[in-house]
């Protein structure tokens, strides 16, 4: 398999596919960590549903589906943010209607588009990495850089807002602007990942590496770095496996990410058991509270 894998990876289309997967693997967890922090892990999935309507609009009007997907999913993400901000109990229902409206609208519009069959729909729902063109790759790189500039560059502010929104408000941080920026970046990430893992699996790449990272990390910055590493490793491994064994790339990438999570969880359990077997150290790691006071 080694020789054939090497051969396969020497094709430019496979190299573009690998690069595209790596970009997605890097940016999706960097954004997803904020959604997880807010305990809104499934929002990425919903935005993915809404993006499908954008794809439908693009195919129907003959415009670039990536552009229309970004616009429609950004509008959807802003709507989701406004619903969240109000914090109404009916918000849950509003989100459900928005998300299913999004996917139904997408399927409906793609069906209306001339000469665009179900094969096309599948490529957006589950990704189509190997058809990545050089122009697609440039778009992914530029959009990915925008997402990273926000998620990594504004980390302290986004962390503060997602951790304790009321405190951020009292501190005078631009809470609303940051929330809307995060919403738009979620839409951009979803659209970039659409090509890689598809709209139905977008959320997995945003959330699963974060879930794995936080099993071993102590802080937010550490979790973010580990999650981005996990995302890149999953995307790279998944893409290589899919090239070598002729597997569906998006699904393989997500399954590798989940396997990584399971491995980390198992390793963590073993380590904790081993630590418990050394009782002297356990006693030393939790000093009595009164000693801490100066």
């Amino acid at each position, binding site marked *: 398999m080694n020789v054939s894998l090497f051969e396969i990876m020497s094709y430019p289309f496979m190299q573009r596919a690998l690069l595209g997967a790596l970009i997605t693997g890097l940016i999706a967890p960097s954004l997803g*960590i904020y959604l*997880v*922090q*807010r*305990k809104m*892990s499934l929002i990425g999935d919903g935005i993915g549903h809404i993006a499908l309507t954008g794809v439908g609009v693009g195919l129907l009007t003959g415009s670039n589906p990536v552009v229309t997907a970004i616009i429609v999913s950004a509008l959807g993400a802003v709507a989701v943010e406004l619903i969240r901000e109000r914090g109404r109990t009916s918000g849950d229902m509003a989100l459900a209607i928005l998300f299913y409206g999004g996917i139904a609208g997408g399927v409906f519009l793609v069906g209306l588009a001339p000469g665009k069959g179900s094969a096309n729909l599948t490529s957006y729902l589950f990704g189509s990495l190997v058809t990545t063109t050089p122009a697609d790759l440039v778009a992914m790189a530029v959009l990915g850089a925008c997402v990273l500039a926000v998620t990594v*560059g*504004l980390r*302290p*502010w986004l*962390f*503060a807002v*997602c*951790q*304790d*929104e*009321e*405190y*951020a*408000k*009292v*501190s*005078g*941080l*631009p809470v609303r602007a940051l929330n809307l920026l995060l919403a738009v970046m979620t839409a951009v990430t979803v659209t970039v990942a659409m090509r890689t893992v598809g709209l139905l699996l977008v959320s997995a790449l945003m959330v699963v590496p*974060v879930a794995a990272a*936080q099993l071993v*990390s*102590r*802080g*937010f*910055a550490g*979790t973010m770095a580990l999650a981005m590493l996990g995302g890149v490793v999953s995307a790279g491994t998944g893409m290589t496996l899919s090239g070598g064994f002729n597997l569906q790339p998006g699904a393989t990438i997500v399954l590798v990410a989940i396997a990584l999570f399971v491995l980390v969880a198992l390793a963590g359990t073993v380590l904790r058991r081993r630590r418990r077997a050394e009782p002297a150290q356990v006693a030393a790691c939790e000093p009595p*509270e*009164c000693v*801490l*006071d*100066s």
Partner: protein
Amino acid sequence: MSTSPVLVIRHGAVAYDRPVLRDVNLTVTSGEVVAVLGANGSGKSTMIRAALGLVPLAEGEVELFGTPLRRFRERRRIGYVPQRLGAGGGVPATVGEVVGSGRLARRGFPGRRTAEDRQAVAGALAAVGLTDRANDPVASLSGGQQQRTLIARALAGQPDLLVLDEPTAGVDAASQEAFADALRDFVARGGTVLLVAHELGPLQPVITRAVVVHDGVIAHDGPVPHPSGHHAEPGHDHVHPHAPQDPPSIWGRE
């Protein structure tokens, strides 16, 4: 030290479904340590939340440092300590990271972190006695230590006014003492404090004035009322039979 008003509430009223606060008037001047006391549901927390703009006033007005709340932009002058951390917390965060977010109001947006920021965070951690826990996940701390983390976060911004919502609820005695010390230092440096409390405990000597809220109105404004009846007995153990034995963690129920 000037005695200019730091916080003024005039004829403040708040209503959710029913009126929670009615015609509340409060003036806190520079250097004071004001405790807002009252039973659960009396409206005492709502009062300070309204003063910070977290709850809209149905009537009346709030002034912070002489500026109406609507036009108040010097948010860095306020250090807010909520009862518990917000909903966020799905991802681990270290004590240092949480306290560091208290510097953001000073840093500006999007300012760089300076040596001054680092010093302020270190100073705030030292003030509450958590220096050696800076790199630990907040979830690994006791309830009292988590509360001290939130106080350090507010202190890190070097505010002029500290507003605390039930800072000692469900907090162990050691943390209460550490907290009283931190408050004393803060006041000695010219700070003003407004805190909501159910009972004062070790804080009592630090308090300069007490405001008692009862049924949405201010029932007392003056010296700290002395406990009466069996509450006044030495060694009285203030037990709430209705309170949970093990208070829920301030980071949410786990």
